[in-house]
């Protein structure tokens, strides 16, 4: 096989890995948007807190001394619990009191919560980066067509796929998911049908935050330096992925995430790494200009 082809396959693999992380986080944005029509800007900080929860859990249990699948699962659980509690708290304290307020007020609140968490984290954890516990050794597992497939790539891809598969099951094959869909189509009517909308919103935050938690542990393993501002850029990119896929659409968020991950990897590989971040915003501008409803979204007709 030619070297250039092999390189391309390697970039493809990296792009999909990166993309599944974007997708995991994008799902949190899109789920909350689907139910509340709110861009939850604090979502990226929930993700950041997940990484720190996993970091402190790993450190206090000395998990980097005993690497393996069990340690990895412990980190996941710790991050999921911490993110769920944080997500619920944000919803209860910041968003619920504003449920009937104009959307702009809630949006500004979301930005406020995001900043509050970023800077609180800098005070509590310190601004200097920390080294995420290395619980999975990144070995080359096997080589296909001269492409090295490494432990972390496979883990990220598998865990990401499992999490998204789990979400699909939840949304389409459980009562809770059915209630979530009903609330997202029409909350007031759902409540008239006896559905406790507040409870469904809480579950939405739990599920969305848990996906961010999974994403944070995966990122921690792949790029082990974590710091209180780590959520900013990845959060914005995941948000772009959600908009690209069509905000409110779950398959859209997954597709948008993978698409963005792949494009970034290809830009870095074949153009220049300088354009990496510009690309995400370029995509956002193009989507907003030409297809504001996104790839999978349905256009909203404004009543006049």
């Amino acid at each position, binding site marked *: 096989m030619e070297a250039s082809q092999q390189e391309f396959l390697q970039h493809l693999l990296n792009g999909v890995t990166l993309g599944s992380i974007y997708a995991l986080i994008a799902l949190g944005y899109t789920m909350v948007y689907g139910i509340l029509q709110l861009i939850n800007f604090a979502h990226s900080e929930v993700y950041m807190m997940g990484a720190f929860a996993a970091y402190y859990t790993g450190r206090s249990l000395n998990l980097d001394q005993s690497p393996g699948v069990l340690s990895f699962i412990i980190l996941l659980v710790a991050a999921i619990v911490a993110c769920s509690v944080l997500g619920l708290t944000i919803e209860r304290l910041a968003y619920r009191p504003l449920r009937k307020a104009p959307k702009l007020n809630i949006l500004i609140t979301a930005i406020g919560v995001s900043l509050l968490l970023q800077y609180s984290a800098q005070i509590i954890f310190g601004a200097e980066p920390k080294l995420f516990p290395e619980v999975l050794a990144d070995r080359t597992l096997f080589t296909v067509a001269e492409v090295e497939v490494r432990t972390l790539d496979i883990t990220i891809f598998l865990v990401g796929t499992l999490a998204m598969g789990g979400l699909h099951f939840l949304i389409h094959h459980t009562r809770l998911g*059915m209630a979530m869909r009903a609330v997202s189509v029409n909350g007031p*009517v759902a409540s008239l049908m006896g559905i406790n909308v507040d409870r469904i919103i809480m579950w939405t935050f739990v599920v969305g935050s848990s996906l961010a938690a999974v994403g944070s542990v995966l990122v921690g393993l792949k790029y082990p330096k974590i710091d209180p501002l780590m959520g900013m850029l990845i959060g914005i990119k995941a948000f772009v992925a959600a908009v690209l896929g069509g905000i409110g659409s779950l398959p859209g968020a997954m597709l948008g995430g993978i698409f963005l991950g792949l494009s970034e990897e290809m830009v870095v590989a074949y153009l220049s790494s300088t354009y990496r971040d510009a690309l995400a915003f370029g995509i956002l501008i193009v989507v907003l200009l030409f297809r504001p409803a996104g790839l999978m979204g349905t256009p909203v007709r404004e009543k006049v």
Partner: protein
Amino acid sequence: MSDEILLEAKKVGMEFGGLKAVDAFDLQLRRGELVGLIGPNGAGKTTCFNCLTGVYKPTSGEVIIRGVNTRGLKTHEVSRLGMTRTFQNIRLFKELSVLDNVIIAGLQHARQSVLDDVLRHPRHYVEEARTRERALELLRIFNLEGKADLPSSSLPYGEQRRLEIVRALATEPRVILLDEPAAGMNDKETEDLMHLIAQIRRDFRLTVLLIEHDMRLVMGICERIIVLDHGCIIAQGTPAQIKCDPAVIAAYLGVDEKTTEAT
């Protein structure tokens, strides 16, 4: 017990920024009754429904459902007291299938926890079969069974209206409020609907409060009629009494006579 009061409104008032949409609305709905609420456009009928069902918090007065004062209750809690409604402009869960629309309304009676559901406890399968069967049974009564798996938005208009009633029934209500169920229907459909309302009322032992513009429907099936104008009750009584009431004729029938004849 037939004179048990299931729904009671005491001096309910609703203001929007100083504008009184409903003023001192009194209502006593006894078990098994079928009462019509009529009035010209903008008289406040739908606002009344919204106050009764907890969609609006009335600015004054009280709503009591089966002995429970609904003040401070959330909409879903009011629904769980056994009162439900349909909408003037159809509000189905459009993206969802016909069957799912009905199942959702029955969720409040599910005897399984979220964990049973997600982890597929045996209880989940029992419960799943039970609610599904119940939903299909309701659809069967309304001749919608064959369309259970279609998206609800694909149904023709008249069937969407019927589906709204099915969905409302799936909440297992004691009292049902129908907001212009015959809106947009032709004579034949309205006729069928009259029989249907009478039938479900009998079969499900329902108490019905009905908002309707179609005078034939109201006069045909309601035992008692309340007439609303400018947010106030201007008359109530049997259809015969309402037909001759001068205040009603002036406010409603007189003004609306042409359109009534035309339909």
